[in-house]
């Protein structure tokens, strides 16, 4: 059995398990999606609709209006947010959305946006905890994330044993998520895109897709094993510009088809509530929308909490407010842009659309207006994929470090495994890769959300406490830089 076949059968087994579904009105509803939606709903209500009350405070925090001048030079709210966003904005926003629309019709967009809005509350909860229970090491560096709040937060509540078990499971699943969604899915879709712009089936790379994977592995390896930090730094700086370029291109396509905009919105709304032409109708559209949104913005999975926990602040709640913006940027803005582009140009309705892969469909919708854009999109895809892989390799490394007490050997073993899967990802079929990536990533939400519920009181106390102190004027903005 070659590695790709082995992977495919393993992926099928895992997917069947994680995506255990019940039949509702002819659509199969994976319970794990319900799990995430309920968490989003719960924290939306539990925290008192902070998505509506909090954004102004979030933006003021990002702008540094509450940062002490003495902390100049430390990690700012903006930097923590930007780092987390660049790990989140990846192929989920380009390919995932296309997959959602080709499976769930335009109506999936509506549910995706709803999921993004609900995800803001979950993200707020987990990132606040990440800061509250982070560990400061002797050298001043910090480690945070669900492993730490599950272990230490639950211990405070007298649930130390359960906390330790959940933390270990979380760390194991995060390693899986890093290898799957954070790595294989990225290298798979980037490879498809590279082959497609170099000539599709006639490309010299067609049938030799592993060569692209090998190249990716070499580049990621240069950063994470070779320690060539300049590659990572350059990527971090280019990605935001690519994101802006991508959104600009979406806007151009949308403006070009401005007359179709009302009809497109009509399709999105009617699709959301009628589910016409979609397998499973409304429920089908809803499931697909929620699933793709969760995969894209990672709310409830706990991964972003690792990135957010490096911020310099005395108030854990501040980072909760800042992190809340992440699903908004990722899903409500970027995913919606992609969705509108695909729906407005009508490419999702093309007869051969179901046979296209995620990125190809998005690429085609841009091509209708900007014939040269697929080349730029390919570059964006490759860069997004690369930066997401770097972020997730970091998450995976932190999880490995947690499990093996920061053992250098264990971290190096993880890095090598990560790179091997980069190559496998490029050569495996999309379906298996998507299934495995989803399974591994969604598994993280099980221990994480159990922990969030058990710590719900702590979360509300911190978030409301801070919010009230801002409202009452006890916490004031910093007037000067000095």
């Amino acid at each position: 059995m070659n590695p790709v076949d082995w992977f495919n059968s393993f992926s099928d087994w895992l997917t069947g398990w994680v995506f255990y579904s019940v039949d509702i009105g002819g659509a199969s509803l994976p319970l794990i999606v319900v799990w995430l939606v309920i968490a989003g709903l719960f924290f939306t209500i539990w925290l008192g609709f902070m998505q509506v009350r909090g954004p102004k405070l979030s933006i003021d925090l990002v702008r540094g209006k509450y940062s002490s001048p003495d902390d100049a030079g430390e990690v700012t709210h903006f930097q923590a947010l930007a780092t987390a966003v660049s790990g989140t904005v990846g192929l989920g926003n380009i390919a995932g959305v296309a997959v959602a629309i080709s499976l769930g019709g335009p109506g999936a967009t509506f549910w995706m946006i709803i999921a993004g809005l609900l995800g803001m509350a979950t993200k707020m909860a987990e990132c606040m905890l990440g800061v509250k229970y982070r560990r400061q090491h002797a050298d001043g560096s910090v480690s945070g994330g669900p492993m730490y709040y599950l272990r230490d937060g639950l211990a405070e509540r007298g649930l130390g044993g359960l906390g330790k078990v959940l933390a270990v499971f979380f760390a194991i699943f995060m390693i899986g998520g890093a290898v799957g969604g954070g790595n294989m899915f990225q290298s798979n879709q980037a490879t498809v895109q590279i082959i497609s712009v170099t000539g599709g089936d006639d490309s010299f790379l067609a049938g030799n897709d592993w060569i692209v994977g090998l190249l990716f592995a070499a580049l990621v390896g240069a950063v994470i094993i070779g320690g060539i930090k300049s590659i990572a730094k350059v990527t971090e700086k280019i990605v935001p510009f690519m994101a802006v370029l991508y959104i600009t291109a979406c806007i151009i396509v949308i403006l070009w088809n401005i007359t179709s905009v009302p009809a497109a919105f009509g399709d999105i709304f009617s699709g959301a509530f009628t589910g016409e032409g979609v397998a499973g109708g409304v429920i089908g559209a809803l499931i697909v929308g929620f699933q793709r949104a969760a995969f894209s913005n990672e709310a409830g999975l706990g991964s972003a909490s690792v990135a957010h926990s490096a911020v310099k602040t005395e108030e854990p709640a501040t980072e909760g407010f800042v992190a809340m913006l992440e699903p908004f940027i990722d899903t409500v803005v970027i995913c919606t842009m992609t969705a509108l582009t695909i729906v407005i140009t009508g490419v999702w309705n093309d007869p051969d659309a179901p046979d296209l892969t995620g990125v190809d469909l998005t690429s085609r919708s841009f091509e209708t207006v900007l014939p040269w854009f697929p080349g730029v999109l390919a570059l964006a895809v490759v860069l997004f994929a690369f930066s997401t892989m770097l972020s997730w390799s970091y998450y995976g490394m932190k999880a490995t470090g947690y499990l093996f007490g920061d053992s250098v050997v264990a971290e190096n073993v993880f890095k090598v495994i990560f790179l091997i899967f980069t190559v496998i990802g490029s050569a495996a079929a999309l379906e298996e890769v998507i299934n495995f990536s989803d399974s591994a990533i969604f598994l993280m939400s099980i221990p994480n959300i159990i922990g969030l519920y058990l710590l719900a009181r702590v979360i509300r106390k911190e978030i409301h406490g801070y919010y009230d102190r801002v409202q009452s004027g006890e916490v004031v903005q910093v007037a000067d830089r000095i």
Partner: protein
Amino acid sequence: METVVVGVDNSDSSTRAVEFAVERARHNNWKLVLVHVINWTPYSFTTPSENEHRHRERQREIEAANDQILDPMGRIAETGGVPHEEIVHHGKPSDTILDIAKDKDAIHLIVGRTGDSGLREAIFGSVASRLVQHAGVPVTVVP
């Protein structure tokens, strides 16, 4: 005793600015505040591992600034027998120097004409010219 802020960095013109300031401070009975600003913006894009180690890195930057810039400049003031204070801060150099000057109620600002970053100055203008444009107190630029 009136306070005068002197912006310092690695450059020769900065050394000349401190010498000039010390000379004047002796005659006018000034206290000098030597300020070095480490160029930094809260809005840069960073990697997760950079963030993880940022606190330690910042500590190193401050130590290096003290060792390599403020200590030698401070010695010039000490030799001249002028009371002085040393401040190192992260931020945008011109804005931070202005904020510190305001905070210290400085009556005067003294800086060297060219800093130690040639290319950036060629594109965005020098710290000295920004100070001249925006300061609320007289600025002396030492060539």
